[in-house]
């Protein structure tokens, strides 16, 4: 095969791979919606639909840092927290001043910007350093954000926005509205998040991440992952591209936070702790580092599984553990990879993956 044909083949493979990923999301949506409409889904499961979307967005965005730029981040929940708080604060301040949809879209953008801004703030000093400092700093960042949000009081009155670290310190004028109430968080946020919006946000996230990977900047990011010194030697500003991956990832985590927060009557910091950051990392690792589709699937299965197994009460954790191990083997063991590539080879749509596996 000559080079031009090879490039054509590669292009169609890349396209096919992206289409499969989008296709999985769309099929998942149609199946679930049908189940919802025909009443074939438990109410608890229904309650999990938005969180599933949240975790998929979180996992895909974390994979951009871990799998594509090759840095370890342990504070993804911190960025979700920022997105969640910034957006719900906005939503409550605006209240009925804006129609629901434009307000929610603005809230999503604000959540993304705030989280992305903090991503840049942290990334600039840390990503300059050679070594695994990002893991330590993001770990600390996640905890700091969580603790900070826990003591913040904020409100709005005719004089504008007010912030304080104690309840009594927050001096609001006549008719003022208290929005963030320290450890009690934010309550009364309208529940704007729906499964449909979640799916749309997943598709947008995938669009951004997949297109980025297959572009000039994406190649630059991956080159800094594979060999920092070589990347510099061909004129790639390493810090800038690691920062790009990190801040885009943070912004998307912010979006996940927005979606999460607009699905709750009361938002507190509890959920945005170290365990959540690790959980998202588990999705990424189990789904295959650098494998966007894999982290998406892992996030769905592992979020839905405990609920699906509810009927089996006693065996629940056992089965959960087995699924974890099977997923791990499926993604990582050489024999399983070979088996999978043989299967994929037979599918008309699976060839790109198959070739990736061979290598």
């Amino acid at each position, binding site marked *: 095969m000559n*080079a031009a044909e*090879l490039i054509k083949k590669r292009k169609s493979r890349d396209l096919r791979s992206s289409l499969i990923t989008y296709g999985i999301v769309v099929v998942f949506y149609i199946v679930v919606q049908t189940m919802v409409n025909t009443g074939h889904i438990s109410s608890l499961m229904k309650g999990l639909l938005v969180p599933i979307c949240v975790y998929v967005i979180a996992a895909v965005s974390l994979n951009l840092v871990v799998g594509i730029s090759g840095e370890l981040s342990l504070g993804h929940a911190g960025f979700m927290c920022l997105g969640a708080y910034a957006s719900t604060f906005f939503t409550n301040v605006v209240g009925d001043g804006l129609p629901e949809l434009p307000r929610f879209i603005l809230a999503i953008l604000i959540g993304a910007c705030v989280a992305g801004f903090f991503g840049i703030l942290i990334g600039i000093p840390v990503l300059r350093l050679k070594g695994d400092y990002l893991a330590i700093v993001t770990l600390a960042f996640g905890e700091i954000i969580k603790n900070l949000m826990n003591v913040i009081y904020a409100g709005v009155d005719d004089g504008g926005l007010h912030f304080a670290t104690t309840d009594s310190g927050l001096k609001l004028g006549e008719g003022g509205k208290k929005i963030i109430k320290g450890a009690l968080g934010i309550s009364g946020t309208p529940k704007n998040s729906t499964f449909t919006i979640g799916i749309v946000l997943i598709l947008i996230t995938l669009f951004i991440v997949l*297109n980025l990977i297959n572009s*000039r900047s994406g190649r630059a990011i*991956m*080159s800094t992952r594979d*060999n920092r010194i070589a990347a510099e030697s*061909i004129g790639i500003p390493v810090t800038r591209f690691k920062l790009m991956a990190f801040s885009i990832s943070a912004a998307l985590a912010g979006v996940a936070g927005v979606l999460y927060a607009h699905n709750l009557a009361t938002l507190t910091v509890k959920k945005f702790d170290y365990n959540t950051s690790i959980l998202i990392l588990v999705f990424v690792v189990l789904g295959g580092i650098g494998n966007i589709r894999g982290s998406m699937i892992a996030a769905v299965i592992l979020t839905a599984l405990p609920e699906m197994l509810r009927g089996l009460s006693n065996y629940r954790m056992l089965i959960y553990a087995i699924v974890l191990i099977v997923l791990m083997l499926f993604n990582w063991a050489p024999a399983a990879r070979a088996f999978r590539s043989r299967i994929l080879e037979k599918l008309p749509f699976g060839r790109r993956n198959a070739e990736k596996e061979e290598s």
Partner: protein
Amino acid sequence: MAMLDINGLSISFGGLHAVDDFNVTIEEGQLYGLIGPNGAGKTTVFNLLTGVYKPTEGVIRLNGQDITGKSTVEINRAGVARTFQNIRLFKEMPVLDNVKVGFHNQHQYSTLTGILRLPKYWKVEAEMNEKAIEILKVFDLDKEANTLAGNLPYGKQRKLEIARALATDPKLLLLDEPAAGMNPNETEELMQTIRFVRDHYKMTILLIEHDMKLVSGICEELTVLNFGRVLAQGPTAEVLKDPAVITAYLGE
């Protein structure tokens, strides 16, 4: 004006004078050799030239422009590209992408253009693909465009490193032991390729090499390093006859 002019270049690690008062002048279009025993400081010269290390003393001029102390990225943009003695490819990326990432500063579009797949994305990508194939063909790597770089056999990895360096459109190409680990046939082929690259791309090439057949076959001039100092310098045939060089290096 000389393409490369190095004056009094020195660096020490702890007490070790790895490179000590190094001087060289290389004219445009020359194929120049840097030889010397292991540990003589050859790779260190490349690292100083490309900004990986900052010299304690000395001046490096590229085409008259002072590039001393500049960063690796700036120096590449000024026109210096290199390969590495211990291969440093982007192993998890296909061969084609290893070259395309070398075009980073040559063929540009913004990140947003890439994400939104605007017309410019398709145009520049097509341009890059075409240019990448052209370069890969020189190294007979075009049939392996979709192979992951890490899966190439050793000799081809060395060639891909040169291809990637060329993609940055350098004026000066530095090759660190390009024939290391190659068999005599591959080395012979490489010699022809290096000559072709110099002639076709009008490149100035400075190479480090232990293979004397390659050195005497393609280098017009040589500098011999020993313990960080210049032992001999001049036209290849003369330098290789120098008794000091023979005892220090060739005789061992």
